[in-house]
């Protein structure tokens, strides 16, 4: 299946791209997608798969979540300062 990745500005600085497409096996999870992202963008290894908030189509998800064809994954750094 094909999924879309959207990097928040924080991760875009490391990946060098705003958007990407990934091809994954039909029963892939968000964690599988994160691992493939790291393969394609090694500078993200410091953060993924642990230091990230994952949204699929606008909803927060855990990394074990099963993906569907055409899902859009958005990745944000977990921050809490004030």
């Amino acid at each position, binding site marked *: 299946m094909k999924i879309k990745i*959207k990097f*928040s*500005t*924080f991760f*875009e*600085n490391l990946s060098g791209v705003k958007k990407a497409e990934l091809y994954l096996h039909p029963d892939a999870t968000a964690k599988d997608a994160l691992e493939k992202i790291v393969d394609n963008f090694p500078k993200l290894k410091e953060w993924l798969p642990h*230091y990230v*908030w994952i*949204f699929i*189509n*606008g*909803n*927060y998800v*855990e990394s074990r979540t099963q993906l569907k064809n055409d899902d859009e994954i*958005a990745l*944000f*750094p*977990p*921050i*809490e*300062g*004030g």
Partner: protein
Amino acid sequence: MLNKKELRRYERQIMIFGENAQEKLKKAKVAIVGLGGLGSPVSIYLTAAGIGYLSLVDEQKPELSNLNRQILYGEKDLKRKAKPVSAKEKLKQLNSQIKIKTCSKRICRENIEDLLDDVDIVVDALDNFETRYLLNEFCVKSRKPLIHAAIEGFYGQITTIVPGRSPCLNCLFPSPPKKIKFPIIGVTAGLFGVLEANEVIKLITGYGDNLISKLFTYDLLRNKGEWIEVKPNPSCPVCSESFRLRHQ
């Protein structure tokens, strides 16, 4: 009614949204929880804009390492008074007509209702998710809008939570980040504090668009900003019931 002095004082912003909107600001009651990097600009800009009543909550005293970003305080304030007390003195100098309530205790499950029951809007200017979840639960239960922001380094995020209309904080971030001593520079706190104050002003006056169901992020190092649409979690333990009630 606005008096002559108020009409003069706020004339430049009344030019934008009119006298009725300024009256709404005067009648509004807003709580700012956390008076650090975010809470400093939030409180300054809401005081300057003429919000009638501010409730300030923070249990800490200013420390030297706060001064790169917590612009309410100076060297003379270090380790003397609790932040809300020190903040009130500064804010009263800026605008003596604003009513300011201070609480120098840590907000907790036992006192949250007493502290926030009388306000219309709550601003999350905190630095930890443990207390943010508490604020979120209270705001969902009492149907008060909550303005959320968080910052780190040159990067930050902000969203406006309106219970029953947008995802709550628990929908968006159900797991807190790992505890770290986070790096931060004053300009990031300044920008996101101003954005939070702006959300409050727009909510009260009805002027402009709020970041409801939108998570806005900005990277000050590379001057890049964006927002994404975010959705409620239908099985959120905090807010899903309020959605069901609203849509019945």
